[in-house]
């Protein structure tokens, strides 16, 4: 039951990693990917292209689209059951 300090530290790091994975990815990896896509697209529009208005419109639109796609996925999964 007693663990050496390195083994305990490794266990804690692994546990924390698993916690972060469950929290951010979990059973909705599409939402995690969507956040990365949103950051990529808005970076291109705002930071690289200086298209502020386009970035302002695209950001919430992509978030709404990601939510709709995730819901569609959940509906399909529910129908299969």
């Amino acid at each position: 039951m007693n663990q050496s300090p390195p083994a305990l530290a490794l266990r804690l790091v692994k546990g924390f990693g698993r916690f972060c994975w469950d929290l951010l990815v979990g059973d909705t990896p599409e939402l995690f990917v969507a956040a990365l896509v949103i950051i990529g697209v808005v970076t291109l529009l705002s930071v690289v292209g200086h298209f502020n208005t386009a970035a302002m419109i695209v950001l919430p639109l992509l978030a709404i689209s990601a939510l709709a796609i995730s819901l569609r996925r959940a509906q399909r999964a529910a129908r299969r059951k």
Partner: protein
Amino acid sequence: MFFASSVPSGVVVLVGAVFLASCVEMVEALTIVLAVGHTRGWRAALQGSAVAIVVLAALVASFGPALVRVPLNELRLIVGAVLLIFGMQWLRKAILRASGLKALHDEDAIYREKVAELKALDASVNLDRVAFVVAFKGVFLEGLEVVILVLTLGSSAHRLGLAAVAAAAAVVLVGVVGVVVAKQLSKVPENAMKMSVGVLLVTYGTFWTGEGLKVKWPGGDVMLAAFVGIYAVVTWLLVLVVRRENPQVSAEVAA
């Protein structure tokens, strides 16, 4: 009128998000603590809860000041992305529950399950220790998400103290109501609260992801109020669409 004009919309959204999220998580934690208290005694249940709350508060106190030192643009981009993910996850779950595609969070069933689990324990195990650990884990794990929200929302808005107070107020409120009614709060409209938190988190996530990527929002903080309205309407429409596409499930839920 004075309140509406003197309190920035950012503060209202921040306090609302942290307070509601904390209420939702603490209602879930309270169910576990009550199950432990009723089956294994109150002393260990309350000790476990108190230690968990102290550890959670220590996490806020130790990581909060460090986060405030991170450059604001980078902090807001990371926090914005995390809040977008959290917010979309909360909204997705709440919409599926409101549409009948996912079972509502049933505090009564969770309470019964936890009580049965604790009663089935072998008498040879140290029951006080088990009760302490179960209560600690329940409060700590439910509270960890609140700590992340307090740290991210509070430090990015430079209002860590206010965020911590909002979370503490929710813990006290749920605790007092729990003591008064002395049972799990199954009547709390948890899904509606979850949906509201989802809207607020996606709002902050959108706003700060944009700010972190140098998007200039018209009217500054005023856009937060506009996003709350937009996302609330979209959520309502998505519930209607999902319900319409799954009429049998919705009818079963209504029956």
